[in-house]
């Protein structure tokens, strides 16, 4: 029996919460419950980020996903008043296709990760690695072009959704 650190215990607890709530998210019948379980999953994943010394990422994850995107999800589901009685029945072949696509994705992921070499996690032990300072330096020095490109992608998506939301285009 090797020495178990508090980090390992926390990792196990967080993983258990994440996996359980993710499973409940899929299996629960009511869409509102699904969204609430998804929020719990996000919090567990934010805990994982903190364990990896990525404090900034953890808080931003909570602000963006749990605080903004899931509120919008909940908003839409409440407004459309979706529940199990009014849920549209999906045909069998669509369900089958979804299972096949998901399975193919899983196989791909497992294949990729199996072949990948063991990553060197030495850097992750540095407590300051996830601070805003370091993140900003890395983003604006090493990854400036991908960073700016992804922001343009967001802008395009925003313009597109405004266009779709407009009733008449004059």
């Amino acid at each position, binding site marked *: 029996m090797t020495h178990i650190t508090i980090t390992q215990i926390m990792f196990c607890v967080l993983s258990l919460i994440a996996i359980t709530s993710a499973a409940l998210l899929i299996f629960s019948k009511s869409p509102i419950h699904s969204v609430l379980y998804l929020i719990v999953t996000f919090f567990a994943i934010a805990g994982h980020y903190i364990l990896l010394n990525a404090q*900034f990422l953890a808080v931003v994850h*909570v*602000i963006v996903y749990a*605080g*903004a995107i899931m509120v919008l999800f*909940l908003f839409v589901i*409440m407004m459309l*008043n979706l529940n199990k009685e009014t849920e549209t029945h999906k045909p069998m072949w669509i369900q089958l296709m979804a299972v096949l696509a998901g399975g193919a994705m899983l196989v791909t992921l497992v294949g990729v990760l199996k072949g990948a070499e063991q990553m060197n996690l030495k850097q992750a032990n540095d407590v300051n690695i996830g*601070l805003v300072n370091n993140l900003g330096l890395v983003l604006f020095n090493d990854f400036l072009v991908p960073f700016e490109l992804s922001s343009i992608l967001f802008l395009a998506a925003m313009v597109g959704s405004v266009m779709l939301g407009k009733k008449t285009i004059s």
Partner: protein
Amino acid sequence: MSTYILYKLILVIAVFVISLVIAMYSTYGERKIAAFLQDRLGPNRAGPFGLLQPLADGVKMFMKEEIIPNVSNKFLFILGPGLAMLTSLCTSAVIPWGPDLTINGVKYPLQVADINIGVLYLFGVVSIGVYGIMIGGWASNNKYSLLGALRASSQMISYEIAMGVSVITLIMITGTLSTSEIAAQQHGFYNEHSHWFSWNFFKNPLTFLIFFICALAETNRAPFDLPECETELVGGYHTEYSSMKLGFYLFAEYVNMFISSAVMSLFFFGGYNFPGMDSIANPNTVAIIGTIVMFTKTIFFIFLFMWIRWTIPRFRYDQLMNLGWKILIPLSIVNMIATGILLLATGRV
């Protein structure tokens, strides 16, 4: 180590109790201010000047019959007010209430958790604060509650953006995300080196204005209290609630008000700093006066919240959305860009 934990425990309990007591007496203050503004007397029967009124209200809340609607989702119905209370109390953890106390050469900071991303933590907790209202409103299974919950969520999402941008402007000026450092930077009142006031309000008043309006909207206070607009929605999201669960919702609003007042005095009005704090030699005296100053500023902002509530009529819903999206967001973005240009031009970055 054990003294450290003991000290933090005492601090947490103290902050918790102070938040609740201030929230409790805010209800009394609100009635007295409303009465003053409407030329009435207000509560004056329970105890001297009616000072025991909040206790009587609390006892009433606890003793009332508790009704849970049959058709509602019981677990979520109970979770809603609990979540509202939890998130409103969570935010007090990162606020520095005063300068460090020094006892026997050991420094005791008057802040529960000095984390390096304090501003983001505040923002994160505020952004999940809407779930209490949304879940409670939905679980009630009442159309008025649902409408109130929908209004609350759309209003909070809309005003969070302008608030976020104004916080970014503040971070650009201060250059830090740590709340204790923001407080320390606003030392004293007038900075001799830069020949300007050290409080952030004097560096960028527009940011404060945007932040203040958004704080009013985020705490669902008048003139932004559409989620519980009684002329249209009976009681809004808490129509179906009774007893202490209703009390939790009302209380959470007052705690939110207290915390956002504390945040405003911390971000823009120097927190615990006061003019002439350098002329006092004893650091413990500075700490005690600083804490009193911090609470005085906070209580002034609570008063401002109440003053506005009893002066300005409620917005119409489309006016609320127009103000948020068409005025505050562009204004805050222009403010951010102008601040950035100014900081670059003066060589501050």
